[in-house]
């Protein structure tokens, strides 16, 4: 499949494409990561994080101008995450740290232990489908209101804006209960 097509499908969050990429690079990544650690569980976690970062960065349009192959990009993220992992501290990793390219990726590790944020998360999951989709595009995929307006086909931008306010309000209010 053409790289551009694959990136377009990734941007749309197409699960078949994610699966294909996941399986295609799984073995190679394991072999690669084994240079730094024998912790199989951690390798699997890092590989999954790398895939998440790939999907998110694609959705945010950061792969639109990608010169390398998707696999190469995925390995670059993986290498970066190995370097950042607390569980892996290896001489080799540190030696090679200089040549690493920073990949935009927020791990939200601390936030995952924050009670208020986790409560917000479960409230978000209880929202209606329409609100969820809108907030997902805005916060998770960092789309602008203009893009969301085009994508979701709202009658007008004002309607979209007021819907977003209403969704946010119900999310915030659910916290006060």
């Amino acid at each position: 499949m053409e790289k551009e097509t694959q990136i377009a499908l990734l941007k749309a969050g197409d699960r078949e494409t994610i699966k294909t990429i996941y399986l295609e690079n799984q073995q190679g990544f394991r072999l690669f990561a084994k240079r730094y650690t024998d912790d199989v569980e951690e390798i699997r976690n890092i590989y999954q994080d790398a895939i998440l970062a790939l999907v998110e960065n694609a959705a945010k349009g950061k792969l639109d101008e990608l010169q390398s192959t998707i696999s190469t990009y995925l390995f670059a993220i993986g290498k970066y995450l190995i370097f950042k992992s607390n569980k892996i501290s290896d001489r080799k990793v540190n030696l090679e740290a200089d040549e690493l390219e920073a990949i935009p990726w927020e791990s939200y590790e601390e936030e995952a232990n924050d009670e208020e944020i986790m409560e917000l998360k479960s409230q978000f999951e209880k929202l209606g489908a329409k609100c969820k989709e809108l907030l997902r595009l805005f916060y998770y995929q960092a789309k602008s209101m203009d893009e969301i307006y085009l994508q979701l086909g709202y009658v007008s931008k004002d309607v979209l804006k007021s819907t977003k306010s209403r969704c946010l309000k119900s999310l915030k209010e659910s916290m006060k209960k």
Partner: protein
Amino acid sequence: MDQEELINAYLEGTLSPEDQKIFENLIAQNPEYKAELEAQRKIKAAITISERENLRGFLDEIEDNSAKPKSRVKSWLFSAAAACMVVLAGYFLWTTLSMSPGEKLYARHYETYPNLIAPSTRGEGSVDPKAQAFLAYDNGNFEQAAVLFEQLKNEPDAEYALLYLGICQLELGRPEKAIPVLNLVPASSDSKEIASWYEALGYFKLNMLDKGKAALQVTSGSANPFQTSAEEILKSLE
């Protein structure tokens, strides 16, 4: 941009310099705005964590399914597959029988080594020969990659070029060219064990078992991804 868009772009690090100024002024002058930033940050974190959990569940499913084959298969499909298996097994048996012991080892153990050197991802049509070589390598264009690595190998700190040139030659079915190149990787190099692994496989391809064993000794000597495999092969050849 509305207030939330401005905050969101700030959290994404995508504000333009002008908007960055507007944003900083707002924060400095208005304590409420600061509180709103914190609230937005939490919402963004909560939604992102939720979405990631969702996708991670899907990835776990893939991982589990790739470990075990699917169970419910239509019976005719099963028969067809079984028939194919018989043919394949026959073919495999025939090719294995006609293979030398060395070639069998090669077939069982050879895997393309991943690009660990230049996974750089930027650059508008990069003209850097190193990046070009690895791009060709990643794309499976080993003929082109070999030419580029050949040019790179004489530059300082270019031991990697020897390793990858050797692997390209193996990929192209030319072990006799791969072996001398891989042998040139200096013993002081971080990749010596890896290079020896591929050198050994090259010898096996040519069915030169003793030479292959000698190269494997280097690979089994210290920690690297192929150490266990090297030890196993050495044991089996004793």
